[in-house]
């Protein structure tokens, strides 16, 4: 009775689907979050009668075989890197990425992480850091006597001082792009790490070819579309129920067999 295990693979797949969808909904207002989608594939097939097998010495062959599928499996959970909506915050250190590119962040371990979430803050010594306190690369220190900070579209950070007309250039935010954004590994806290699948980071600055621009005073919202997530959730739930129905049918058939005298 393969139907039991086939139904089970279907239920497991839909459970994962619901989990992915609920994670999207949970992150519907997470800055820089990119929605994810579970991708499924059919499992192996048992070829009980192989199509095209000869049926006589005269060259006749089977026009269709018996191919029994064994269920479904999860192929991948892929990320949809569509641009999220820009939300105005008026915070001086909030920066949104428009177009491709990731902010680079140095982890305490010394590794580099990448993020789309540009909600930066100042540490006690004036360094621009993420909300977790990890320094944004390259290390940019805002002097304590600066009265204002502006960030240009190219990611250059300027500080204004009392009695000084021209702003002082403190440094330029470093951005990274990847040939395969989907290959980045999520490590939580809106951070991602490079993998062999993502390819090496191409480091550059905002506005150069292949890179987006930076917008001060805005944040990139989550690109989760709640309406489509809810409809997906309904579909996933129904698919789950239908798979339980095939288990139920197999169970009843087994019950019939056990009543055999």
């Amino acid at each position, binding site marked *: *009775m*393969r*139907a039991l295990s*086939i*139904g089970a*693979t*279907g239920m497991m*797949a*839909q459970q994962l689907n619901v989990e992915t969808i609920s994670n999207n909904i949970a992150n519907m207002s997470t800055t820089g979050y990119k929605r994810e989608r579970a*991708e*499924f*594939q*059919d499992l*192996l*097939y048992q*070829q009980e*009668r*192989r*199509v*095209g097998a000869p049926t006589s010495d005269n060259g006749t062959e*089977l*026009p*269709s*075989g*018996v*191919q*029994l*599928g*064994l*269920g*479904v499996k999860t*192929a991948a959970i*892929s990320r*949809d890197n*569509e641009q999220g909506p820009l939300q105005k915050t008026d915070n001086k250190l909030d920066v949104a990425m428009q*177009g491709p590119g990731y902010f680079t962040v140095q982890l305490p371990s010394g590794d580099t992480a990448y993020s789309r979430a540009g909600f930066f803050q100042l540490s006690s010594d004036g360094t621009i850091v993420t909300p977790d306190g990890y320094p944004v690369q390259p290390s940019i220190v805002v002097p304590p006597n600066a009265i204002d900070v502006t960030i240009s579209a190219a990611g250059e950070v300027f500080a204004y001082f009392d009695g000084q007309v021209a702003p002082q250039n403190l440094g330029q935010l470093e951005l990274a792009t990847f*040939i*395969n954004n*989907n*290959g980045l590994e999520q490590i939580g806290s809106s951070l991602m790490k490079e993998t*062999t*699948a993502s*390819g090496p980071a*191409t480091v550059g600055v905002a506005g150069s*070819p*292949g890179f987006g621009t930076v917008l001060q005073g805005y944040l990139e919202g989550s690109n989760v579309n709640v309406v489509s997530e809810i409809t997906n959730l309904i579909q996933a739930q*129904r*698919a789950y129920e*239908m*798979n339980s*129905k*095939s288990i139920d*049918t197999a169970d*009843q*058939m087994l019950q*019939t*067999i056990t*009543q*055999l*005298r």
Partner: protein
Amino acid sequence: MENSGYLALARQVALDHALDISANNLANLRTSGYKAEKLLFEQYVQRATSPVTPPNEMSSVVQVGTFTDYRPGDFEQTGNQLDFAIQGDGFFAVQDPAGTRYTRSGNFRVDDTGQIVTQDGLPVLDAGGSTIQLPAEARQVTVSGDGKVSADGNVVGEIGVMQFTDPQSLVREGNGLYSSTAQATQATDAKVVQGMIEGANVQPVLEITHMMDILRNFQAAQQMVDSQHEMAIDAINKIAKV
């Protein structure tokens, strides 16, 4: 066992298979590009061994084959520029280590070298069998209806859409792939649609009612075995009394 017992057994084995196929279709309800599998039955007529006139014929059920329902699935908009669906008959060609394979599931990605690949990392091929390479700095990938891939306005390749004269001859390999010994030709009336994926074409209502039908038939066959068994017991008892 009497013949009726064998007939019921053949019926039950066939129904067991039918349930497996329905269960597999339902398990793949949300698998992109999945095509429903259907089972074909055939009567197998066998002459009973006893030489009676007129000849006593039995008809037993055998499964002759499964066939694939190639009707299109619903298109679902994803907005992802590397998601593709085929409108019309045809398959995407991908390069598997074991040879060229075909798939309807167009949820492609780029790999670390910039090649367009499937979720399993198999390179997608054009009609001539070459892979499609996107330039590293490509930002906007657009694909026209005939499969031409442009990166920022420059044509960089073409996604091949292939067709077969007899798609039923394709062998399902799992992972959404099909293999064929027949030669594929470039599809003539198929169109590539970007930003959409084709959902499974499984009809849940049909599958669920089919499963109910299978269950009832299975129980009916069981009834047949039971009554035959009772007849046998009855016969033994009665003969013993004589």
